[in-house]
């Protein structure tokens, strides 16, 4: 279930990555996540937003506050791009592997930083990654 506080942010420049980070921080604060968890989900959002920009050729992020069936609050962010897609997901999800100049830790690191991580990708069509962090 999502609420009406959803924020949709286009990702086309480095400033947009900052915007995604700020929106995530706001939503995580509103969901009353602990400071450590807020920092974790913000960092994950930062990684995924930058991947959307750098590899996906731009796209968008949808930041929302969510509640699970037991009433637990959380933050969910969906990153969507229509870029080249990821040909070898296992490889991309290997610590230290990068096709560019990065540390190759963004994708795997983001997955460890959140509670739920879902990756859908198709070569030539794009990538959608959904992450959720719940309040403890």
């Amino acid at each position, binding site marked *: 279930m999502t609420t009406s506080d959803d924020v949709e942010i286009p990702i086309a420049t*480095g400033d947009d990555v900052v915007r995604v980070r700020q929106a995530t921080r706001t939503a995580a604060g509103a969901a009353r996540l602990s400071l450590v968890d807020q920092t974790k989900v913000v960092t994950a959002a930062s990684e995924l937003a930058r991947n959307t920009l750098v590899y996906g050729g731009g796209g968008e992020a949808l930041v929302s506050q969510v509640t699970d069936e037991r009433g637990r609050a959380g933050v969910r962010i969906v990153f969507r791009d229509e870029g080249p897609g990821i040909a070898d997901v296992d490889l991309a999800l290997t610590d230290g592997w990068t096709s560019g100049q990065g540390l190759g830790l963004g994708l795997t*690191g983001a997955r460890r930083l959140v509670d739920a991580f879902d990756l859908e990708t198709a070569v030539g069509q794009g990538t959608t990654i959904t992450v959720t962090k719940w309040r403890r």
Partner: protein
Amino acid sequence: MTQPGSAGQTRIAQLLTEHRDDVLGRWVAAVAGTVRGRITERELRHESEELYGLLVRQAADGPAGTAADELRSMLADLSRSRARQGFTPSETAVSVFALKQALFSLLEEKADVDADAKTYREFVLFSSVLDDLGLHTFETFAAAREQVIADQAESLLELSTPVVKLWDGIVAVPLIGTLDSARTQVVMESLLQTLVDTGSRYAVIDITGVAAVDTEVAQHLLKTVVAARLMGAECVISGIRPQIAHTIVTLGIEFADIVTKATLADALAHVLRQSGVQIISGGQA
């Protein structure tokens, strides 16, 4: 096109001249209502009188006259200064639009004038001139505002990157806020430059004020440390708060053999020791 009146005077120009004090008074009152307190009544009065003079000339000469150009440049100056003073676009454009209201209410009160079709046509024409001028102030305002923002962003970039000398041979750079690539680059460059300029052997990079450290920020930090090493200087990273430490570990970033300290004070004590400075508490003996 409305032709100027017999003596080169349009009816509007005549009305504006005849009822100068009345219209001007209403105009200034309307503008004052929106900009209250941020411009003195006298300044506003002065500004409006100047504009009014030009508008009367413009009404008499038509858009081809020299008054039109002067008007535009005066309004451009006005918009720019309003933008700098932090007015909103509507507060700025009201300087022009309010005159229409003032003139219209005058026309309404003079019933005989109202019936005059020629005056009416002229009023419509004049009011479209005013609309143009109003839009012109909007545009100049927006351009000026963007310039202000660009200037601020640039000065923030510089302001936010102070490299300070802590001790002979020890410099420090406190990083604050959000680190994007452009900012980090500026910080790191000025740090390396300061190392050269001051001949310092130690640098403390304090990240207490940084909201989050992701792989990009980490990479910038690592590169700076390596570059500093190539120049014969050692870097210490301080101010790693618990939530940041958690995140860095979870991300899998390794700071390898880089010295990290919890606080700036710890880092300073460390590099002082490294450089052979002894701190002795001030006893009496």
